[in-house]
């Protein structure tokens, strides 16, 4: 797996699974979802929860796409202080919730 870790745009079906995504100006069509699971991420570092999709595109290439959600753990003061989360996100080079990330490509 070659790690990419880039934010991407994804078109999803009605049930939220990816159908097509854009990367480096190209469009990739999802032929099949090989595997799908969820990960809580490193909640102690405020990493967001994510849904992971291993997909096969029409050219037979395997990609790993992550859909990011909210982090599962915040302290009360962090909840009050929204700027803290933005700061953390920027420090950790994270994408905010509700976004898709291309995690890697199998060569």
């Amino acid at each position, binding site marked *: 797996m070659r790690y990419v870790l880039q934010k991407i745009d994804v078109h999803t079906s009605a049930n939220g699974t990816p159908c097509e995504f854009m990367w480096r100006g190209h469009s990739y069509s999802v032929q099949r979802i090989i595997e*799908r*699971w*969820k990960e*809580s991420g490193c*909640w102690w570092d405020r990493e967001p*929860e994510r849904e992971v999709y291993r997909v096969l595109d029409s050219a037979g290439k395997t990609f790993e796409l992550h859909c990011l959600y909210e982090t*599962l753990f915040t302290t009360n*003061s962090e909840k009050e202080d929204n700027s803290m989360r933005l700061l953390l996100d920027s420090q950790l080079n994270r994408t905010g919730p509700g976004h898709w990330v291309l995690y890697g490509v199998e060569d």
Partner: protein
Amino acid sequence: MSVHLHVHSAFSFLDGCSYPEAIVKRAGEYGYEAIALTDHDNLCGAIRFVKAAREAGIKPILGAELSLQSRANEQAGPNHITLLAATSHGYQNLCRLITLGYEYGGRRTPATPAERLFEHSQGLIALSGCRKGEISRLLLEGRRIEARQTALEYRRIFGDRFFIELQRLFLPHERRLLSDLCALADELKIPVAATNNVHYLDRDDLPTHDILTCCRTLTKVDEPHPLRPLNAEQFLLPPQLFYNRFRTRLDALTNTDRIAATCDDNVLDMARPDIPTPAICEGTPAQFLRKLTYQGARQRYGKLTPVIEARLNHELRIIGRLRCESYFLVVWDIVREAKLRGIRTSGRGSVVDCAVGHCLGISDIDPIGANLRFERFMSLERSQMPDIDIDFPREQRDELVTWVQERYGVDHVGAVCTFSTFRARSALREIGKAMELPEDEIGLLARRLRSTNADEIAEQMEKQPQAARQRTSAKRYEHLFAMCARVAGLPRMISTHLCGIVITTHPILNYTPLQPTAKGIARIAHFDKDDIEYVGLKMDLLSLPILEAVDQAKPVCRFESIPHNDPTTFEMIRSGQAVGAFELQSPAQRALHVRVKTDSMKDIIDSIALIRPGPGMGGMVDTYIRRKLGLEPVEYMHPALEEPLKHTFGVIIFQEQVIEVACAAAKLTPGEADILRKMITHARSKKAMEELRGNFIRKALANGVERDTAEKVFKCVAGFAGYGFAEGHARAFGEIAYKSAYLLNHHPAHYLAGLLNNQPMGFYPPNTIVSQARNRGILILPLDINESHYLATSTDDAIRIGFRQARGLSDTLGRRIHSEAPFNDIRDFCERCHPAMNELEALIIAGAFDSLHPHRRALLWQSEAISKLAQRKETLRLLDIEPDSILPGQGTVEAFPDFTEAERLSMEYSVLGLNPNCHLVSLLRPKLDSYGLLTTADLAWIPGGQKVRVGGLTICPHTPPTKSGTRVLFFCLEDEFGLIDVTCFEDIYRSSGYLAFSEPVVIVEGTLQKRNLGRALLADRIMRVPQTLSREAAVEKVFSLSEPKTHSIAR
């Protein structure tokens, strides 16, 4: 509709985050009509789960996720299987299977042998389990044929009560697994059942579940572990989400409903259990109890007066109406056996109020003579089984429990369990470790947070200056405290209740599984003190170390024959010198006796009840003292209260008086009054208390009491009820307290040696006990390999320290040494006793070889070689080779200088917890003198009111609750001449008093207070002793050692 059939509660111990009550409540909110509880290898939450479910109108299904060891594949470890009790028989089988798991797998790693499943399968429904279930595991490994065979085997065992369990948890390889499971189920025509393997209520609880898993698996949050949850999907799904996950396999959902319908409503019989009757019983229990009571009464009272007969008949009638005759007979049976074995017993608590108990020998206090209310013990109105608490010496309690097992049957006796829960200290330590915070920082913080809940740490940090002083500003501490709050109150593990046992009529495994205890006697039932009443007769066999400690003086003084009117003993008590006496030794007690000029047993009994939160918070202590000394007139809130309160100067100090007062003021029956007392004690809200107040006032008004008076009486009763002692209990303890003081006064060497032999007990550490002995002119003889016994021994004027005192020495070795003595030298000792290296080091450091080899450093240097040579010599002897021919000489390490005196004392203290030869403060004396400090002995001749400065060790700092709510710090300052009590009011406590918690040696500047025969210090300032000299630093350092250390550094 679906039903959750695989649900873990917090009783899965570090693998579940919610109490059963919370699970039931949430299930009710979601509209589920039934729900199961399936904790790992236990039924600890069963009773509270069933109670909560019945209250919520939800059907409870009891089960467990069992660890099942397959003999064919032992290396893979146990597999999981979900078992549900469909019938009572099934529940009993579940108890047996779980018990088997602990028998085969061990106390910590239960593993039920798979081959035993069949014989206990009746009435059980089985689901194939989670990913750790055998079938899923085999399928994930691609071993389909074996998975098929396993499924067939389970079906053979359970028939149509076996289901393939399907879980949709969004884990890797789940699609394939589900597909394989469904294919297998369809092929073999095994029905499927959907579960969500619930471990918490909400997705947000995942961090809690994960951190608990880290604690369980001893991993850090950054470390991977196969048991850690990957995602947050194991929550209690609402019905719609549950449906969505299985809409492609709806039969898996409908089958859950079918399974729930199959399960009986009452698999666990929660009716009041039958009480066993001793085999010795002649006739009916009622007849036998009456016979024994009257036999005992004739022995106790001689002639039976009408008053005595009326009281006994009254009590027997109530005991009979409440069907408690057998209970009394069982207690009588145990006490009788104890006495036959020469084991000292003492009834405590409200049973002392019971004349029948007195006649049966359960308590030695005569409740009729002492005018004690039976209704405090039991009444028809309360209609509950009373608690009969009996004290035994600690060592012999286990002997009696073993006898109870033999008497009533191993299958009918169990130990009550208790659940150790997360409080501030444990949460900080365990979670701090998992979150990778520095252990020493966390340890220090944990030590300073006393009696704090895990969700109040941040708040307490503000309140307790000794904790607030620690640097905890870092963000990560905020995260730590937040995680501690999440786990607050959750159970961490099951352990044995200190004193509770349960005796059942039917086999105990019909009600609860059992698991072995660490000690190996009486297996632990899975129910705690509250739940165990549904199983059988719960009894508290308490251990009271003082009962054993006083036996040390047996050769010189018979405890039972101690006179009750010894003037010198009372003089010792009222001069505040009763350090070491049971119940009379705390600073608060000693100060009280100085103030009230104690001169009778009554003063002692009253004092035991007075130094409690109830009278203390109610401000009754000062009133009592002033009235007792005639400094203020005795007044009663109402004339009717004179009778019940006149013997305590108009002040309520006993629980029985609450009953009497409520009877007199509101015309309640004694039983009703006791219920009121209990309700006040347990009132958890303002509203509940307001209701009680309203009822009381109404009845008092109807009785002709004026409203203002009624209000005052209720306030007084309410302020007291929760925290007072029963008078019977105070009398029972008062008796022991006085006699222990007598022994301390007349036979101090024997008595104090007894205290040393029964540590931990009492208020003061062993070093203080030894200091007290030394100050009483007793010679303290050090640990000696040829002279010491396992326990400390005593003559009239000397105490010899025993091997029990040495930390790190096994009991076996400690007991063996004396039987092998004398020894010629250390090699001789090693050859005959085979100590482990750490044991040998501990003995050297404690000075046990000083009489043979005074050079401790040399001995420590050689210890490893000597120990190895001894082992080798043993081997050579077995091989029939002459060993002495190859042993090397002694070596020449004597050339090294020995440890300094300070080093010797410090190391000695670290092993023994005391210094036999001198007090450590005496080493600091030159320095303390150079600061112009006084000693505690100097304070005897200095007039009260003077400003003084004294240095010494801080002993037992504590901040008890006060009437005003402010925090007042109390501690003792100890030097080589004695100790003095120090009081710091809140401002001083906050500015410098907190040092008493962290500094082993301090200087106290304050005002000397002298009252009657006692003296104390009111602190103005607490200061550190500057550390300039290395030997002093060593002395101070050693007092901060709480754990035994390895001593290799000493070489």
